[in-house]
């Protein structure tokens, strides 16, 4: 398995090279003069030229590409002039926010999708099956920016149950002591109940909003694969040897129906970054998604390049992890 993993990693190198090329080409055809964007429209021409030289914008494209590759090998993802920091430091400071949101939305999605998918499969055409159908409609057809705004209208404007949907914690509270960067976890670890309450209240709506797509797909997958597994001989054997319905479904059925769902869950993890762009923009969540939107709207090369690169590479790694997990869940899977 280790050999297979290493070979797959080696196979990712040409793909990563392709991804680097595409992101480079993409960001260099952005409209507008980047030097002018950095200095501002009113800057003196000499100053604009100086910036152009300093950043290498006056060099031919292939030299810019070569410089970019050298820079990547040094672990330098460039400088985001719209924030005034290096992309790496922006990424490090914003990543925990996105990770917290992604994990929370994955958790919400799975907590609902797995039992619902199983219930819908084991009791076809019951209320659970209908709920699964409605959810599948919402997840596949409702745009998350609309869903997010509806949730805000209902839970903040109309019912007043949740605080203003801005950021990760109320403005009048200090964020919890930095341990992991995940506010919910940090406030638990430092036993800061006020911070815990506020960060949970801020997390719930964006997490629910972002979880919808995943929830719908995973419910559909679990339901479909469970329906197939239920008809297998070993399930009948498990039932006839006197196991409870629960044990049959969860111990024998669920594990076997998880494999096809696992691919989808893995792919969804990658897709969540795309979802984060919209969700974070609506809820003013200070993460990577919001950063991508800000960078694109201010035509800032380096962060766009870095984030598209990171998201595509991350996607490749997630796929690899999923493939390796198959073997853990199903010992019959062999890696060649």
């Amino acid at each position, binding site marked *: 398995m280790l050999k297979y993993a290493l070979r797959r990693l080696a196979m990712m190198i040409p793909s990563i090279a392709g991804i680097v090329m595409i992101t480079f080409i993409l960001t260099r055809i952005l*409209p507008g003069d980047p030097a002018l964007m950095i200095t501002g429209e009113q800057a003196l021409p000499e100053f604009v030229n100086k910036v152009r030289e300093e950043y290498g914008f006056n060099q031919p494209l292939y030299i810019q590409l070569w410089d970019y590759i050298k820079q990547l090998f040094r672990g330098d993802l460039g400088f985001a002039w719209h924030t005034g920091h290096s992309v790496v430091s922006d990424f490090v400071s914003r990543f925990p926010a996105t990770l917290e949101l992604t994990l929370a939305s994955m958790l919400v999605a799975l907590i609902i999708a797995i039992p619902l998918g199983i219930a819908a499969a084991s009791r076809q055409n019951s209320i659970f099956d209908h709920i699964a159908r409605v959810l599948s409609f919402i997840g596949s*057809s409702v*745009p998350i*920016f609309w869903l997010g705004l*509806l949730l805000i209208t209902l839970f903040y404007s109309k019912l007043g149950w949740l605080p203003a949907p801005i950021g990760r914690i109320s403005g009048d509270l200090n964020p919890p002591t930095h341990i992991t960067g995940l506010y919910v976890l940090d406030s638990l670890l430092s036993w800061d109940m006020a911070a815990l309450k506020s960060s949970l209240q801020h997390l719930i709506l964006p997490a629910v909003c972002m979880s919808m797509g995943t929830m719908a797909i995973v419910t*559909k997958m679990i*339901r*479909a694969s469970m329906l197939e597994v239920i008809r297998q001989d070993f399930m009948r054997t498990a039932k006839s040897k006197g196991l409870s319905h629960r044990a049959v479904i969860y111990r024998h059925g669920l594990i076997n129906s998880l494999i096809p769902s696992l691919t989808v869950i893995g792919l969804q993890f990658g897709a969540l970054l795309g979802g984060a762009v919209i969700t974070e923009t609506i809820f003013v969540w200070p993460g990577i998604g919001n950063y991508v939107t800000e960078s694109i709207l201010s035509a800032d090369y380096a962060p766009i390049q870095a984030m598209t690169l990171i*998201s595509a590479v991350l996607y490749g790694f997630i796929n690899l992890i999923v493939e390796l997990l198959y073997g853990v869940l199903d010992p019959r899977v062999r890696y060649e």
Partner: protein
Amino acid sequence: MRKITAKKLLLVGLIIVLAWVILALVAPWIAPFGPDEIRTEDKLQSPNMVHWFGTDNFGRDIFSRILYGARVTIWTGMVAIGIASVVGIPLGAIAGYFGGKTGNFIMRIMDILLAFPSLILAMALAASIGPGLFGALLAVGIVAIPEFARLMYGQTVVIKEKEFIEASKALGVRQSAIIFQHILPNALAPVVVQITLGLGSAVLITSSLSFLGLGVKPPTAEWGAMISYGRDYIISGEWWMTVFPGAAIATTIFGFILLGDGLRDVLDPHRQSSRHK
């Protein structure tokens, strides 16, 4: 039984999609107001007998803007998916038919494009091409190319091994004729399904781009952009500015999904969607 349910869903999808297409076509005749008609004295009215869906912050009639918005949305979706299929289908067919280095090269590029989250790629592309409707539809089209190429590749690899293709080769039919007159028509069913489902995602991505400020320019009536204007008013309670355009997007996408899923079940009985198992 299964067939009947599939047909029913197909019919519902077809009705929804057709309804939006007809509304888009007749918008200038049935819309009570012009899409950009500003009446400041009527601004921010909740739904009433004159303005069925209320008015926005400029006093523009939301119902009329939604009708005109259907034109933008459906047109953008069709052009974008048109671009994607015109480029993606021949690429996939060529890669599948010739295989070897050319095929491998084409498909690796498609794989790389598929590695990007589609919205992020579309955003980067739309920003590169420049904000506006043209940039958005080109971006949405490019993002959808790999899906078509991959589908056509898979189909071609299977069909080219069939006997009738071998027979055409033996008869000396030109390779381009084999690809476009023999292989393509036989792969049409899944392609039609992909076009329908692709239209749904094109509507979603275009409206997302407009919502983020990368799609159409104001004052064009476009559903995603309308929701974006309404965003500043939800806190103060003017829900109609976001609710109605959002419902329009959701029903359109839903229609395309039902139509696509239904077509798949009817056209390709071997590949049932999981819903009807």
